[in-house]
């Protein structure tokens, strides 16, 4: 699902350059009408994109026990129920735990691999890269069913470790892509300069390479977090009675009892995603990291 990354690159470019395409003042009435129609059309499409997500917010604060829009009164009841329900709490914590661990492992594994892909040479590199990226393209249902089939006999289904492995595998391609892009932008003479200054390979990596690719690594980490936290397909199949992610719990509740609590949970998920992406945005804007 590379458009995420595509976007990350595109916005960075946008931030860098400052060419604004000012649409020319259109003189004739026809042009004016055309512009208004086009603008209206685009507005409609944007509403189609945004509204379904936006309406969940007022809904999660609605007072009626069935879903209604617009809500008649406002309440935090559904958030209260979400927080007090031990099932939801357990699922949320389980998901958070998995997502954080996945972020860590995918970032480390993906960064190491990206270095090997960009700077190293070994036989079968091309094939290996293709396999690394394939979880982004292969239908997640196939992966989910396969992982369940393979992990169940090993008692890994519904377990933290099982999720960690599966989600790391799903998240690693994002890290590899962002870090590879960052490494390709990195000037390798800096590395030679560090070696020349007396730093070994490892010191060079931590003192010179890593600080300069940190935005790529951070983007990869954020994408990895979301790839795990928002992931529903593998979670649906791999969850057990005990180990249940927030997405699996939501899946079940949507199917069986569609209460406004789900709206509240949806808001929590969405806000989490937006916060994490916002944090990344702030981080990438900061040109220089604090030193020493």
């Amino acid at each position, binding site marked *: 699902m590379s458009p995420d990354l595509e976007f990350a690159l595109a916005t960075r470019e946008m931030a860098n350059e400052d060419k604004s395409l000012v649409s020319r003042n259109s003189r004739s009435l026809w042009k004016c009408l055309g512009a208004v129609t086009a603008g209206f059309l685009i507005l409609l499409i944007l509403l189609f994109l945004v509204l379904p997500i936006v309406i969940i917010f007022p809904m999660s604060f609605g007072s009626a026990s069935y879903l209604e829009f617009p809500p008649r009164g406002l309440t935090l009841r559904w958030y209260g129920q979400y927080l007090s329900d031990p099932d939801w709490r357990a699922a949320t914590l389980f998901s958070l735990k998995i997502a954080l661990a996945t972020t860590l492992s995918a970032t480390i594994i993906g960064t190491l691999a990206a270095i090997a892909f960009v700077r190293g040479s070994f036989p079968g590199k091309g094939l290996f890269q293709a396999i690394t990226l394939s979880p982004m393209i292969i239908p997640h249902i196939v992966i989910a069913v396969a992982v369940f089939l393979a992990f169940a006999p090993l008692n890994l289904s519904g377990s933290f470790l099982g999720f960690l492995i599966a989600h790391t595998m799903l998240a690693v391609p994002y890290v590899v892509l962002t870090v590879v892009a960052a490494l390709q932008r990195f000037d390798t*003479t800096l590395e030679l300069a560090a070696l020349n200054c007396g730093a070994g390979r490892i010191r060079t990596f931590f003192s010179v390479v890593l600080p*300069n690719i940190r935005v790529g690594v951070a983007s990869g980490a954020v994408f990895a977090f979301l790839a795990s936290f928002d992931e529903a397909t593998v979670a649906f199949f791999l969850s057990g009675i005990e180990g249940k992610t927030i997405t699996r719990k939501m899946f079940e509740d949507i199917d069986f009892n569609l209460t406004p609590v789900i709206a509240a949970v949806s808001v929590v998920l969405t806000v989490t995603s937006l916060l994490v992406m916002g944090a990344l945005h702030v981080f990438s804007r900061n040109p220089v990291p604090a030193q020493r």
Partner: protein
Amino acid sequence: MRRVILKGETVTLEKIEKNFAETAVVRDVSIAVQAGEFLSLLGPSGSGKTTLLMMIAGFEAPNRGRISVGTRDITFEAPNKRDVGMVFQRYALFPHMTVAQNIAFPLRMRRCSRAQARDRVDAMLAMVRLEGFADRLPQQLSGGQQQRVAVARALVAEPPVLLMDEPLSALDKKLRETMQLEIKRIQKRLGVTVVYVTHDQEEALTMSDRVAVMADGELMQVGAPIDLYHRPANAFVAGFIGKMNFLEGEYIGHDGGEAVIRLSQTATVKCPTSSATAVVGQRLTVAIRPEDLSVRPSGDVRPGGFKGRVEAALFVGAAYVVLVAIDGRAGEVVEARLPANGGSLPLVPGDIVDVFAEPSAVRLFSHQQRQAA
């Protein structure tokens, strides 16, 4: 603040060879750089200068040969263990570190104490005249300032050898000249051995104790600037350093103590026999510097001189440059450089003139050599 004092060491390259996938990029290069010497590697782009420097720095390993600093064989030593400072072409300053942090980096790698490091960094900053810039980031500095930081970083750990790869090529002419003096001053003061890569012959001649001329991966000649200029070992060096007229000719025999080379039916030049070990009839290349030619209004042709017609006479400030078409050689022009001496030149295009070259200033090269160059 303590003074920075360094002592240079010798750098010895023995029969160095380097191939990149079957192509020989450096071929059988041997150079012995003296301790404290400023040696330039000079050659056209692609001649293997950078590759040679990379091997001294340790980023590439030679396929054959030996590199040593002092008595230490460093041929296969890891680059971070070599203790050889390097200034890169585009400075290669760490963009995420301040000037002070950049300069302190080699000290940190050597586990120098904080206080000591601070003193050394201050001393280096003073040496490169950047006292007020310690807390700037590299991208907040001009090109020349970045260059100074790079020099300071390369020297802060007091390496006996400093390598520089076309360090001034990104700067404009004026700044380049200032920096040349600056680098010389620092090198003189520290006594560090410098191996300096450049493709700018003027830069090499003005800065170096000795210059090593490279072409196509091979070492052409090593020598003091004045030797390269006046006693080039081959036609390539002769042509690469300073201006040079090359003329095809035929060896026709002796005249007294001098060899006579025929350029055309009517034109000959003479040169000392010592530089001609040819048989009669052999084709040779004659090389004469523009300032070694004298041009006079036509009279009797002295032996060893030839007639020509002035094509152009240009005033270039310190001298006149006169282009003369040689009598009997269609389309071929020699360039002469005559001192201006305040007077105006009594020559205009179309004048028939006598061109004369002092035999001692004429050099002969074999035909093949010229082709190779």
